[in-house]
C-alpha cells in the first residue's frame, strides 16, 4: 500500500527532527570539551591568583605555605630545558637530515621510521625507568640535573625528529637539484640551501616539543628528582627540582595553603607554556611570509 500524503509528511518531519537532534547533540559534545578547558583554566586561576606575588617567584620552598616559593623549581625547569635543548636539538635535527637527505627510501630508514613512531607512543614514565637505569645508575650521574636533562632529551627526540623531517620535506627538490647542478656537494647543499629554508619550521616544531617536556613530571619523579630543594643547582651533577614536581608535591599535601601554592605554580607553568607556544606561532608566521615572497 502506498503511504498517504500525511504519512509522508510525518516521515519527513521525523527525519528532520532527527537531523536537528543529532546536530545539536554533536554541538553540545563539542561545547562540553571546550567548556572543560575553560573551567580548568579558570579554576586554577581563581585558586592561585591570590598567592601570586613577586616573593612567590623568588622564595625557596618552605614548610609554611605563605612563605613558600618556586625559585628552585623555576630555575631547575629553565636549566633543564636549556640542557635538554642542547642535547636533543642537534641530534634530532641530525637524525632528520639523515633520514630525509641521505637514507630516503632505504630499508634502514624505514626501520628507524617505524621505531620513531613507536617511541613517540611509549609512556613517559618508561623513559624515566630507562633514565634511572642508564643515567642515574650505570653512568653514575645520580639524581642530577644531567640525568634529568638526558632523560628528557630522549623523551622529546622522536617528536623533534618527526617535526624536523616534515620541515625538511617542504623544501622543494628543485632547490637541491639547482644546487647540485652548480657543483655543490651533498653537505654543501644541505647546509647552504636546505637547512636555511627549513630552519624556521624545525625551530617551531622543536619549541612545541620542548613545551611538552616542560610539563612532564613522571619521568623526573622516576629518576628520583627531589621534591624539596632549598638551593639552586650549581653544577650538572647537582640535585634539582622542576615546576611540575613542585606542583605535584604541593597538590599531594593535605593542607589547603599548599593547594593554593600549587594553583599559583600552575599559573606560572601555563604562562611559560603560552609564551613558548606564542613564540612558535610567531616563528611560523614569519616563515610563511618569507616563503610567499
Amino acid at each position: 500500500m502506498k503511504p498517504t500524503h500525511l504519512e509522508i509528511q510525518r516521515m519527513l518531519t521525523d527525519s528532520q527532527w532527527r537531523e536537528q537532534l543529532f546536530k545539536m547533540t554533536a554541538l553540545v559534545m563539542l561545547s562540553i570539551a571546550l567548556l572543560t578547558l575553560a573551567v580548568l583554566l579558570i579554576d586554577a586561576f581563581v585558586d592561585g591568583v591570590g598567592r601570586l606575588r613577586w616573593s612567590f617567584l623568588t622564595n625557596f620552598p618552605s614548610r609554611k605555605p605563605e612563605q613558600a616559593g618556586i625559585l628552585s623549581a623555576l630555575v631547575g625547569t629553565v636549566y633543564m630545558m636549556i640542557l635538554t635543548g642542547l642535547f636533543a636539538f642537534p641530534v634530532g635535527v641530525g637524525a632528520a637530515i639523515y633520514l630525509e637527505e641521505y637514507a630516503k627510501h632505504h630499508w634502514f630508514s624505514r626501520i628507524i621510521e617505524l621505531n620513531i613512531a613507536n617511541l613517540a607512543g611509549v609512556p613517559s614514565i618508561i623513559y624515566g625507568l630507562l633514565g634511572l637505569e642508564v643515567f642515574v645508575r650505570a653512568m653514575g650521574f645520580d639524581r642530577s640535573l644531567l640525568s634529568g636533562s638526558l632523560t628528557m632529551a630522549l623523551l622529546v627526540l622522536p617528536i623533534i625528529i618527526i617535526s624536523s623531517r616534515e620541515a625538511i620535506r617542504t623544501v622543494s627538490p628543485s632547490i637541491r637539484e639547482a644546487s647540485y647542478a652548480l657543483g655543490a656537494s651533498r653537505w654543501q647543499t644541505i647546509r647552504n640551501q636546505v637547512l636555511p629554508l627549513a630552519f624556521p619550521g624545525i625551530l617551531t616544531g622543536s619549541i612545541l616539543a620542548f613545551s611538552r617536556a616542560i610539563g612532564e613530571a613522571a619521568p623526573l619523579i622516576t629518576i628520583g628528582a627531589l621534591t624539596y630543594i632549598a638551593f639552586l643547582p650549581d653544577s650538572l651533577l647537582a640535585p634539582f627540582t622542576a615546576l611540575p614536581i613542585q606542583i605535584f608535591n604541593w597538590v599531594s599535601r593535605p593542607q589547603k595553603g599548599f593547594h593554593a601554592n600549587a594553583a599559583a605554580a600552575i599559573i606560572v607553568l601555563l604562562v611559560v607554556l603560552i609564551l613558548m607556544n606564542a613564540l612558535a606561532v610567531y616563528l611560523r608566521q614569519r616563515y610563511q611570509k618569507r616563503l610567499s615572497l
Partner: protein
Amino acid sequence: MSFKPVKKSRVGEGMIHIVLFLCGILSVFTTLGIVAVLIIETYEFFREVSIFEFLTDTQWTPLFADKHFGILPLVSGTFLTSFIAILVAMPIGLLSAIYLSEYASQNIRKTIKPILEILAGIPTVVYGYFALLFVTPLLQVFIPSLSGFNALGPGIVMGMMIIPMVSSLSEDAMYAVPQSLREGAYALGSSKLQVALRVVFPAAFSGIAASLLLAVSRAIGETMIVAIASGQQPRLTLNPLVAVETMTAYIVQVSLGDTPTGTIEFKTIFAVGMMLFISTLILNLLSQWLRERFREQYE
C-alpha cells in the same frame, strides 16, 4: 631529469655522513635500551617471584612485611580508570569530529581544532590538580559515598585529556573520505545525518578505530592524573567510587620513597613497567596497522 650531487672525495663529507647516521641510529638505541633495561630487571624479578604468582595472585603488597606480588589489582586499577576515560572521550571526541568534519564551516573547523588540541598540551599535573580538587569534590555533591581518592574523577579528567587524540585523528580520517562518496549518497536522496553515519563513518572506520586505540594507550600510560587523584591502594575491584592504584601510580609511589636499588621492591617497578610497555606497545602497533590500512584505501 634530476641532478645528482657531485661525488667529492672530501674527508669532511664522509665524516658528516657518519655523524648524521649516528644521530639517526640513536633512536634505535633508545628503544633497545628501554627493552634491555626492562628485560634485565624483570628477569631478575622473576628469579625471586614466580610468574604464576605475578599473573594470578589477587594481592599486590610488595611494600609490606607480608609480600604478595599479584599484578591483577594494578591491572584492574589501570583498566578501570582507562575505561572511564575512553567512555568519556569516545562520545565527545567522535561527535565533535563528526560535527567539525561534516557540519562546521571551514572557518569554524580551522578555529576550533587548534583550541581542542590545547587540551592535549596542558601538563598532566594540572589535570591531576583539577581531578583531585575540582572534579572529585563536585562529584561528591551528587555521589556522597565517593571517596576523596577514587577512579571516577581522574578517569573523567583523563577522558577530557584524550579527547583531542580521538577528535583530531578521527576528524582527519573522516575529512579524508573522498567527496565523491558523499555526493553519491546525496544523489540517492540521503540526508546529512545518513551521509555522516552510514557513509562517512564506516568509510573512515579504520582511521577512527586507530584513534581510539591510541587514546586508550595514552590513558593506560598516563601517570600524574592517577598518581595525584586516584590514591595508592592496589585493590582488585571495578568499583569506581573507591581508591585504587594504577601501574603508573605504583611506579611513582616507589620512586618517591627511599627504596634501595637491588631490592625486590625496587625490581617490582621494572616488572610493572614491562607490563605497561607491552600493553601500550600492542595498542600502538594495532593502531598503526589500522592507519596504514586506511591510507591504502584512500590515498
